[in-house]
């Protein structure tokens, strides 16, 4: 990432906490069928899209928040949230038309929205308060037949593709938050990589919640056709606010025959302050399907933000010989709570998956890994290896591990290892002796501990993520 962001993140507390003054169109708080219809109308959506939303909404009304987590989720008043907020200006065709304030915001975030940042080689779709602001490099990508655009645009321009794949991996009523998202999502990103195409650059979406009292409900759909490849990055920040903000996203990935999708996230939503005020509630459903044979999906996540995180990027290994990976670092400090992990569902033959999860808890936080490895009765020769480690910094935090293994085929080999331990005092001392401060030593050690995961991040994200780890833990040593 650019120097700006490195500079930003090296400052101690949450540095993304600014708000942007732009004219925003916000609909009044509250949720009912009319609101769902209004969102759909505002987005000028076709009838089938509205139907999809309404169906989800009706189901959602009958559903309950999940209660099996190791999270303490305060009562959320879904009627006090505004479900649509959009920067006023619409249908931007060139960067000149984008509100300079917005550009400045993304500038601050270090997001190369400008065309001249071509050298950094990342195509970005920036989503502010649920609405996609600008997608760069669209033309370059279009030459290869790659579609990378905002979700709303995809609904207008590529309705057949959207209709074909939307909700096929995460059904509209998969769970409480997915249903809510399906009903009210306002925008997000859409990616389609045609057969045989290797996407020449990293695709990236930057999400930002700006407006007060709004929830962000974006939706991402990535379709990688036969023998294609794409690496996708997702970053998120939010302003510092005393009240909690709700973020409920859905990501769906479809990998066809021999296709490969890498999805990396650096999640840095506002975590709340040291006293536990404010912060984002991050309830996300991410799931990919290795649909074709020999396809591959890889999730990498660095989770440092949010007051509460509820998120299990998962893979369904349906195609024979398909492979999937989940690499995660989750850091919690102060009053943060995280319940995160993955599900690997083996259905095809000769499928293999790998799970590496590193949890780091500090302060008064609670950090849980929750994961499922399931081997179906016909999934011959399935392989899974899981390693879930937790590190504790301080004696008032908690680290928990809840893996589930359900094996219905005798040819499976499933291995799980987990350890929980304190940060090594010997290592800190060794660093101290070499003149390294304890704070820096912890940064070093934690980064070393998380290295296996960090190495999986694309270069552009790795530096930022490293800094983030260090910052999130500042003030965690007594």
């Amino acid at each position, binding site marked *: 990432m650019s120097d700006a962001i490195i500079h930003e993140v090296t400052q101690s507390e949450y540095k993304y906490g600014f708000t942007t003054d732009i004219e925003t169109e916000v609909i009044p708080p509250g949720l009912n069928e009319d609101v769902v219809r209004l969102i759909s109308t505002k987005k000028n959506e076709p009838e089938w899209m509205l139907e999809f939303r309404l169906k989800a909404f009706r189901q959602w009304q009958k559903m309950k928040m999940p209660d*099996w987590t*190791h999270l303490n989720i305060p009562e959320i008043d879904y009627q006090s949230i505004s479900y649509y907020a959009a920067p006023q200006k619409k249908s931007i065709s060139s960067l000149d038309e984008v509100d300079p304030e917005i550009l400045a915001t993304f500038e601050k975030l270090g997001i190369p929205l400008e065309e001249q940042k071509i050298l950094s080689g990342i195509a970005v779709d920036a989503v502010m308060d649920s609405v996609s602001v600008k997608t760069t490099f669209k033309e370059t990508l279009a030459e290869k037949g790659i579609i990378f655009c905002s979700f709303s645009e995809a609904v207008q321009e590529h309705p057949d593709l959207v209709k074909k794949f939307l909700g096929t991996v995460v059904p509209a009523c998969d769970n409480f938050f997915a249903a809510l998202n399906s009903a009210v999502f306002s925008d997000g990103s859409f990616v389609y990589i045609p057969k045989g195409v290797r996407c020449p650059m990293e695709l990236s979406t930057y999400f930002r919640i700006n407006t007060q009292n709004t929830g962000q409900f974006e939706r991402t759909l990535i379709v990688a056709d036969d023998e294609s490849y794409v690496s996708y990055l997702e970053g998120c920040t939010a302003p510092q606010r005393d009240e909690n903000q709700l973020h409920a996203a859905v990501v769906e990935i479809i990998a066809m025959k021999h296709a490969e999708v890498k999805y990396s996230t650096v999640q840095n939503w506002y975590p709340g302050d040291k006293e536990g005020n404010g912060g984002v509630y991050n309830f996300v459903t991410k799931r990919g399907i290795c649909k074709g044979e020999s396809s591959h999906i890889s999730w990498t996540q660095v989770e440092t933000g949010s007051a509460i995180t509820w998120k299990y990027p998962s893979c369904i290994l349906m195609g024979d010989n398909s492979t999937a990976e989940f690499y995660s670092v989750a850091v919690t400090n102060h009053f943060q709570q995280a319940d995160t992990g993955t599900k690997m569902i083996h259905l095809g033959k000769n499928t293999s998956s790998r799970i590496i999860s590193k949890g780091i808890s500090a302060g008064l936080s609670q950090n849980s890994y929750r994961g499922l490895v399931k081997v179906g*009765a016909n999934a011959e020769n399935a392989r899974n290896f899981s390693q879930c480690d*937790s590190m*504790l*910094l*301080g*004696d*008032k*935090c*908690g*680290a*928990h*591990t*809840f*893996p*589930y*293994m*359900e*094996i*219905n*085929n*005798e*040819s*499976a*080999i*499933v*291995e*799980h*290892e*987990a*350890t*929980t*331990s*304190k940060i090594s005092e010997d290592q800190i001392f060794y660093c101290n002796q070499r003149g390294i401060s304890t704070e820096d030593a912890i940064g070093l050690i934690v980064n070393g501990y998380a290295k296996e995961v960090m190495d999986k991040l694309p270069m552009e994200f790795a530096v930022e993520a490293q800094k983030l780890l260090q910052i999130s833990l500042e003030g965690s040593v007594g």
Partner: protein
Amino acid sequence: MEKQYIELYKAHHQLIKQNSAAIINRSRDAAFAKFESMGFPSTKHENYRYTDLKPMFSLDYGLNFRRLNFPVNPYQTFQCDVPEIYSYQFFVVNDSFYPPKKKHNGSLPEGVIICGLKEASEKYPELVTQYYGKLTAPQNDALITFNEAFAQDGFFMYVPENVHMDKPVQLVNIMRSDVDLLANSRNLIIIEKGAKAQLLVCDHAMDDVNFVANRVSEVFVGENAVYENYKLENTHNKTANLSTVLIDQKESSDTLTNLITLNNGISRNNIEVEMNGEKCEAELCGMMVGGGQQQIDNHTTIKHNKPNCHSNELFKYVLDDVSKGAFTGRIFVEKDAQQTWAYQLNRNILLSKKAKVRTRPQLEIYADDVKCSHGATTGQIDEQALFYMRTRGISLPEARLLLMYAFAADVIENIRIPSLANRMKMLVEKRLRGELGMHEGCTLCMH
């Protein structure tokens, strides 16, 4: 389905109480009220995802509230004359303690009391009052509640301060009936400060009818006391064996729980070890051999409530045919329980296409100076080792057996009574060879 039990209780609670003791009756109505409101858990309940209680309780069972004597003389049926396993031997037939004959056991060490729980409640009310229901009270489990409402008797053992038992105590649970039978029995075991005892529990089913045994044991282990608990299950495919063991450990105490299941129908072991003093040691291990339609679900919880305690858990399953195994291992480290070491390992071998295993290790940790780990593996027998053995001329089935014995070996090594370890080794090997029949009487004592 709960309804039949609710009605049964309402109709017969007087009878149940009349045939039990005042102390046991004290919490009965409250337990019943709780059961009435909660019912049996469905498989949606986190703790019972892998064992469905509903079908096993929906049959029309007999319950022996009147405490009629069943025509059985366990002393004749179960001649235990294997010299290696010298023990004090006691029987619980269905849900009632079987009055022992002195000539079979000689006399117990000074101060030790072993008798039926009903008898103990009448003869030693202060002792029983001090302990009975103390560990079950905070629990919120349907099987315990159900047991507390219906159980009338069971096994009672008291080992006073600093008494070291000279021989293991053997408790043989026998299910004996001509009609389908449901038995609730309740055990209370008190090992006082500095005392030492070993209990060997053998579960058997004698008749070809459907049995449900729902047993709850409360175990109190005092400061510096040592308690070893071995359980061998060799019942049959119509037995549902539900067992809850709650262990309370005081400072510097040491417990071992070792479970071996060879033949059964559906088994569910709920084991909870709570370390309520510093420097406790707890070891929990099990070897489960499943074939046919056997179902074995071990649900264990180890609570590290105080600093400097160590726990070690090892569960192994070998599953064949359409058998199902489940293991839940919850380790809970309380705030300030520093210097905790907790290790857990679950290893499973699936021998057939249709065998299934569910594993759920759980670490919940609220202290930082801890060393905790768990591992779980499911796989097959090591192909390389098999090949190596075959190049030495060992046939494939024999090589497989050798590797399976090796697999079971470390659970058996945890048995601290050498003669019992030898016997268990022999039995496990026989079972793995498919030569151990179901309910052949006392397998431990058979020649």
